């Protein structure tokens, strides 16, 4: 599909499958490759910001900038690993890890009050004031047994988000 210089060999597929810990089947990986090539129009091996923004449904998402920062410069193998959290075969641990990474912008393994506030701001934006946001977040944190200065780690996220986390995307296989 598109102007790719190399086609996906069986060896490549297996390597990618291993890299994403078998969360995608081989046909899904082939479909994802076609999609990757479709998005990567200039064929440079990774999807740039403009290419992502041409997908209207992605551009309109409030978390698109954050996700883009995580997706920037990824080659196909890493792209599949990124999406592996959304597979039906992914474990709860993998899904929570993904959400944790979205929150933890500085990547130090700890999520601060401000990092949680940042995401809340992305989602609620102009609908509530900064003051109200902080009030709500601290109120809810205290109720759950944390304080405004608590640093949440991944284990905390697993405890908080618990079971019943639905985060799945189906890869269309022609």
């Amino acid at each position: 599909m598109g102007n790719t210089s190399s086609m996906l060999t069986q060896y490549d597929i297996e390597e990618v499958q291993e890299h994403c810990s078998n969360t995608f089947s081989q046909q899904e990986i082939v479909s994802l490759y076609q999609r990757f090539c479709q998005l990567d129009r200039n064929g440079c091996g990774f999807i740039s910001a403009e290419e992502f923004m041409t997908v209207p449904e992605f551009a309109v998402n409030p978390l698109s900038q954050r996700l883009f920062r995580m997706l920037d410069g990824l080659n196909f193998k890493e792209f599949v690993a990124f999406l592996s959290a959304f597979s039906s075969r992914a474990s709860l641990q993998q899904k929570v890890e993904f959400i944790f990474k979205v929150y933890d912008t500085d990547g130090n393994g700890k999520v601060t009050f401000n990092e949680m506030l940042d995401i809340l701001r992305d989602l609620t934006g102009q609908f509530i004031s900064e003051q109200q946001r902080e009030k709500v977040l601290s109120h809810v944190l205290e109720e759950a047994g944390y304080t405004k200065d608590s640093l949440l780690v991944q284990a905390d996220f697993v405890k908080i988000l618990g079971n019943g986390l639905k985060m799945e995307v189906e890869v269309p296989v022609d």
Partner: protein
Amino acid sequence: MSKLNKSSSELDLDRPNIEDYLPSGSLQDSHPKLRLRDLLDISPTLTEAAGAIVDDSFTRCFKSNPPEPWNWNVYLFPLWCLGVVVRYGVLFPLRAIVLTTGWIIFLSCYFPVHFLLKGHDKLRKRLERSLVELICSFFVASWTGVVRYHGPRPSMRPKQVFVANHTSMIDFIILEQMTAFAVIMQKHPGWVGLLQSTILESLGCIWFNRSESKDREIVARKLREHVNGADNNPLLIFPEGTCVNNHYTVMFKKGAFELGCTVCPIAIKYNKIFVDAFWNSRKQSFRTHVLQLMTSLAVVCDV
């Protein structure tokens, strides 16, 4: 409590319900207790984003679906080979000749008419219109177009605009064959631009330039003038703004519908039985596209 702006419901679909987050006391009725989990759980939004990355309906509109190969079997393969020979060896040269003849006739009639009848505008316009229809018929014949027109033919009335879906540049030619429309088009460079400024100008076509910002108002004014004029050719607009793969339509741009006149829709459906007429301008140049059409058995479509 300060006032909250209520947004429209479409924006709110996946946003957390704002009222749930206000500390209780400012709420009239009781809501279920808000937990940290509800605030931190961004999985719906993430799922939507990932869904858009994996597949989205907009890109699907531009995908050219390759035809299923039908010739890989002992009986059909020789037939297909024969077909290739016929298409490239017999049909293509014939069509090229037809097209060249058509151009010769057209050019030799057009220029005299254009220059000699400068004074007699009405007659000149009518002749030019018939000539354009003629050359378009030649074009259609050059790819053996089998076109079925349904419904009443457009008449020359003021205050009406025609809109059609867009699959390829040949849409315009197929429609011109039936009636000489005035179209709104992007000004192209090169020999196409030359054609545009000489011949199509006489039909009353309007040009626009996507890169110029002031262009929009100028074009909107020209469009309005055109539809209000009684003896201008009927105006044809492709509201999608780009070529789509004939399986879906893309959201219409509003320009065509703001002119304050009756909108008459035209649907063009190509039958992919012999050739896929979708011009994927990212994949093929126009020349390749035309050559592909001329070397296929036929172009079948319904209008």
